[in-house]
């Protein structure tokens, strides 16, 4: 299926369909459901320099066509990832990309340094946009200057593909995108979750232990599409689009507005085989419309 191949900078993808960090575990949890080699890549769980217990229960609330989460980057830390998880997933026949979070520039750099030796990790994604922990990087993601700082610092220790994941909780996402482009990012991915809230009116309490949390799922798709479109018109580096994708049609929408590849997040919970279905759907759309390569869709919106 050559017509499905795309590149994100130096990164080669057999197709543009990937799965989003925090919604796909360490990928192997999905191998019961479909053959992971069918998709372009997987973004594993947000990884931090030290182990994190995350936020207290309850961490989830359902909302109209979406959900709020307040996981708070629970993970066993980068050393555990390197020694215990990496060996188990390195031979998955697709791109395994690590999502990295931190509370200081140094955290990100240290984390990246520990991952450099893992030659089956072709890229990292810098999460400068987690709304769920004070140290989740959202402060970086809402300020162009510090976003550039993190990017620049990690760039010095990481020479493979570096994707910077942007926060949608900003007035002007293009400002941040341009800033990280200037600081050496190979690509940007967007959007992370929108900051939201839900209330239990019987208990008169917030549904989440952290009061506010990150909104994801189909409800955010219109906002995500708009931000990808704005970013596409502002930067030259490739864009990985996400936010509410639940079917192949959604994926095509993202590509038309400028995404070179896409990630599926929340919908993995509803249909764990969705990523493979989206690959098939895109292939059929190309055939039906006589499009030679999926690359021809990128930014092909007629306006």
């Amino acid at each position: 299926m050559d017509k499905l191949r795309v590149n994100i900078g130096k990164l080669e993808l057999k197709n543009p369909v990937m799965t989003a960090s925090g919604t796909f575990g360490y990928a192997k949890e999905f191998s019961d459901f479909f053959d992971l080699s069918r998709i372009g890549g997987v973004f594993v769980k947000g990884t931090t320099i030290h182990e994190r217990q995350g936020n207290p229960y309850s961490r989830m609330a359902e909302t109209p066509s979406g959900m709020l989460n307040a996981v708070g980057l629970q993970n066993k830390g980068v050393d555990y990832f390197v020694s215990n998880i990496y060996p188990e997933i390195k031979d998955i026949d697709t791109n395994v990309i690590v999502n990295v979070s931190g509370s200081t520039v140094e955290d990100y750099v240290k984390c990246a340094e520990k991952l450099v030796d893992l030659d089956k990790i072709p890229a990292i994604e810098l999460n400068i946009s987690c709304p769920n922990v004070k140290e989740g990087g959202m402060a970086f993601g809402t300020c162009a200057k510090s976003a550039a700082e993190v990017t620049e610092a990690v760039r010095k220790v990481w020479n493979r593909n570096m994707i910077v994941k942007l926060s949608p909780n900003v007035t002007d996402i293009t400002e941040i995108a341009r800033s990280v482009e200037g600081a050496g990012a190979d690509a940007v991915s967007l959007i992370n979750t929108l900051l939201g809230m839900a209330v239990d009116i019987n208990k008169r309490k917030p549904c989440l232990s952290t009061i506010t949390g990150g909104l994801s799922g189909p409800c955010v798709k219109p906002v995500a599409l708009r931000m990808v479109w704005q970013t596409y018109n502002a930067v030259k580096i490739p864009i990985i689009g996400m936010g509410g994708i639940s079917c192949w049609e959604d994926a095509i929408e993202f590509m038309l507005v400028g995404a070179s590849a896409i990630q599926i997040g929340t919908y993995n919970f509803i249909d764990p085989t969705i990523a493979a279905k989206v690959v098939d759907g895109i292939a059929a759309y190309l055939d039906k419309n006589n499009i030679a390569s999926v690359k021809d869709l990128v930014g092909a919106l007629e306006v």
Partner: protein
Amino acid sequence: MKTMLDLVVTESTQLNQNYSLIKLTTTDGSALPEMYPGQFVQVKVDDSPKTFLRRPISINFWDKEKNELWLLVQKVGEGTKKMCEARKGDILNLLLPLGNYFTLPSDKKSKLMLIGGGVGIAPILFWGAYLRERGYQPSFLIGARSKTDLLQLDKLSRYGEVYCTTEDGSYGEKGYVTNHSVLEKGGIDTIYTCGPKPMMVAIAKYADSEKITCEASLENLMACGFGVCLCCVENTREGNICVCEEGPVFNIEKLTWIS
């Protein structure tokens, strides 16, 4: 192995105003996957605009001969309401089987008490049947608000003695399960329980004080149901761990319910 399956409703019975029993089988006659008591399924509620996420429901029974999976559903909101309205012939999409399961005791003679409250009896039936089939002697202690909320007693009684409590005294002993006289008799080796958290915590405390082994099946809110979102965590002695994947069944020693 976990799978996603379209199953067809072979029977859907409204047990009372709030509960339905739904029986499902495969659409093509192929065998249902291997399931164990304590495990659950994630149901997609298709025609409900208000349910985006799947809904976790315990495996109430696996009828191997008829190749049927039973779900006992309590109407509490939109999703369970739609499920309870399922008609024969409807298709439900499920992820199954999910989670771990109750631990089979080593000694067939050990005295086992299976305690269910409300819809918490759902996994208890399957577990009771499973134990009996393997030569164990389970007993059941079932608690409910009132007589009409006591379900599947006839089915349970095929597998062992059944004791009941109701809060209003309309059936069995009046009060909570933890007050039932059968517990005073002592001699219980292991308790398995599923029900509202306050009930399970009370039972855990009782079991702990009596040095009875106890497993509880938790019902934390879930998004994925197979260990990838980390939303369903319970704070345990080993930190936050996923109820959907490392549970829903926990030995109470692992939990932090007893201080």
